[in-house]
């Protein structure tokens, strides 16, 4: 190898401005600004300038965003969690059962739901890090299993406020306070509670990744597992915990889903994991691990959230929305690859 201070030269040649734009954060922010710009131009007769539009854009992205918080932790370790959509459905069913049918208070339902999600993650994590099953396969199995469990527990039908009585008739009960709280808006109706929950999750995930030793371990394991092991990093523990937390976030998303739908639907959350992955990837976190972060994912969540909103206020048909989203994912990932080349 020719020894030459490549890094020193490369950075000195760039100006501060170009470095900002070329940084991963700069790229992700540019993508978001582009979408917002499209929204400013095609503003659907001013609909884009109404605060309710922005509130709804963020609200609709929030459940996906909460999933993306956990997904970021897993993807940083060079893994993937396909089970989050099914875990969301499982937790939604359990949560609705506890809150509606058993009339349990929120302070028990919320932690219990998070524990259910975390347990699913713990199983996936153990399969990946102890049994050395590929993350794709292990979480695929968990995805199918959790969906089945959700259907088993709910008897295949939605767990709604129509509660079956002892004599076989149905009686409608009130929507639990927990669900009404989560589905409400605060600050003069300007922001949804689910959006605040997403921000809280993003903050937790961000702190974990950039301020905790465990987060450093995740980057190390994702960047170079062998070097990490030989540096005394507890690889198995760190990786398992990433899946556990991913499950916990899926649990939180499940609570929000149940609250918004006012029921536990065992069919909920299908393909949500793919949207969460897309949000992480558009942000610039590499699927090969060791790079990225929660700030980037937050930008990715906004990008996809606003993209959907801009397209829907302009009455673009769903078929076109899906196709465009696919194209944009490819473009976003491609620009990130050219940065590294």
């Amino acid at each position, binding site marked *: *190898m*020719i*020894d*030459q*201070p*490549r*890094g*020193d030269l*490369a*950075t*000195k040649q760039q100006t501060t401005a170009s470095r900002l734009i070329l940084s991963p954060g700069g790229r992700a922010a540019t993508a978001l600004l582009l979408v917002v710009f499209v929204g400013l131009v095609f503003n659907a007769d001013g609909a884009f300038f109404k605060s309710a539009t922005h509130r709804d854009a963020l609200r609709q992205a929030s459940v996906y965003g909460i999933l993306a918080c956990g997904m970021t932790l897993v993807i940083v370790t060079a893994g993937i969690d396909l089970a989050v959509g099914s875990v969301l459905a499982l937790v939604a069913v359990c949560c609705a059962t506890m809150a509606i049918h058993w009339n349990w208070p929120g302070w028990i339902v919320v932690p219990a739901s998070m524990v259910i999600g975390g347990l699913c993650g713990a199983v996936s994590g153990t399969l990946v890090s102890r049994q050395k099953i590929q993350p794709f396969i292990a979480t695929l199995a968990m995805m199918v299993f959790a969906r089945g469990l959700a259907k088993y527990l709910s008897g295949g039908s939605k767990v709604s406020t129509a509660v079956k009585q002892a004599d076989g008739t149905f009686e409608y009960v009130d929507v639990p306070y927990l669900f009404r709280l989560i589905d409400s808006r605060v600050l003069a109706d300007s922001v949804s509670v689910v959006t605040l929950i997403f921000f809280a999750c993003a903050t937790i995930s961000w702190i974990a990744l950039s*301020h*905790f*030793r*465990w987060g*450093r371990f995740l*980057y*190390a394991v*994702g*960047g*170079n597992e*062998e*070097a*990490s*092991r*030989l*540096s*005394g*990093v*507890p690889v198995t523990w760190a990786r398992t915990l990433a899946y556990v937390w991913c499950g916990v976030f899926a649990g939180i998303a499940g609570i929000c889903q149940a609250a918004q739908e006012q029921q536990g639907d065992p069919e909920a959350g299908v393909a949500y994991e793919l949207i969460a992955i897309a949000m992480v990837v558009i942000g610039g976190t*590499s699927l090969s*691990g*060791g*790079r990225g972060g929660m700030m980037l994912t937050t930008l990715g969540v906004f990008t996809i959230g606003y993209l959907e909103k801009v397209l829907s206020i302009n009455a673009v048909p769903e078929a076109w929305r899906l196709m465009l989203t696919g194209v944009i994912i490819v473009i976003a990932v491609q620009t990130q690859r050219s940065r590294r080349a």
Partner: protein
Amino acid sequence: MISPSHSAPVLVEMSAIGKRFGSVGVLDNIGFELRAGEVHVLAGENGAGKSTLIKILAGVHQEFDGELRIHGKAARPRSPLHATQLGVAVIHQEMSLIPSMTVADNLFLGRLPSHFGVVDRRRQFADTRKWLDRLGLNIDPGQAIESLSIATQQLIEIAKALSLNARIIVMDEPTSALNVSETERLFDLIVNLKRDGCGIIYISHKMYEIQQLADRITILRNGKSVATAAAADLPTSKLIRLMVGREVEPAMRRSFDAKPIGKSQPNRFAIRNFSVYPQGKSQAAAVNQASLTVRSGEVVGLGGLQGSGISQLFGGIFGAYGGNVTGERTLNGRQIAPANPRQATRQGLALLTNDRKRSGLVMSQSVISNTTLASLEQHCRLGWLIKSSEYNAARRTRDAMSLHSASLDQEVSLLSGGNQQKVAIGKWLETQPDLLMLDEPTRGIDVGAKQQIYELIEQWKSEGLSILLSTSEIPELMLLSDRIYVMHSGSVSAEFNRDTASPEKIMEAAMGARQ
């Protein structure tokens, strides 16, 4: 002048072969000839250019200077496949078998006997068995490669090369995974191949094999051909002298007073009858019953050629192979048995691996993250990282090792090789180890960084750190070490101190030659 028959047809003729990687020349004006019915040994230290020369013949390196003639015709192998078609079969050190496929499929990959696209399984199995029988292998052709031992896989690799019916056979350290009886079987086979008119180019670091097999020997040193002679005209001592050379490297001086470590210094670290089984205890040992000691403030060097087991010894000591070790490890008078690198680090061991890209650094992470990775406990409270403390550690490393980096937040992948190595070493110094193990600390770095690392080693030594290091360069080994152990085929074959060491003796011991 040459023993087989001087009139035997020339199979390979190389003249004025040169090869450069970028600005670095690795081969310079090499001439080489292989005749039918001879074993022509290529000898030389690690990095002398043997493998590069073979790779030109095998079509791995297509760009080279000079002329290559195969079977009397000028040829430039464009790819390994093309080389095969030209009649060259290469048995590489690294396996080229597909683990999940059967023995028969591996042997006939790409040339399955078939009728109109339907594979003739019966013929394929019969042919496979024929080749396996020639090697005395009693295994089922339908067995998967991965279910076989490493030694058997190596023999199948050889069977595959033979089944190509090649007249030119290259064997690059074919016995590294074989035991004594398997080696004998291979040697019998080589004798048969010679009789059948094949020519064999044989690379080995084992003196015993060279004495057994060689008809002619060509010695390479620093990319140049030093001599070609009949084996009978090259006694062991002369061969070794030619391999080691006589050059003294004036650039490398000890800039410090070399005060020898007295016998009175206490032992800091010792291993006794230490064996390492990287593939599990049912497989062959890479290190066999090794014993050595390191005193306080002493630099102990480990010398050896490829396949000596030095890296596995380091890994075994460090717990990288878990419980697949036997024997004793003693640090500061207490027995230790770390089950993994994490425990080893806590107990005061540190290991710089010989491949910083693969197992040393997290390339996607910053200088700071890499510097503190092994000592992160010191920089956090209840799991919360104290960034200022981390930053100070990285600055300490930068200043102590004169690290050149635009910023400490820079990804290490952007640093030069020498600076990367400094980060990798700095990471281990931050753990304040009692024993620092350095596996090839100067591999792939420039001369200036090398000199700096020499000086640092001297400084740590004066601070009382015990260092166990390996290097494949004999001058470097002699320059840095207070004492030297030489390893050959997984065993410690000799021990020298400053006064008794010489390049020839080290090379002799490394090749397992009788003294």
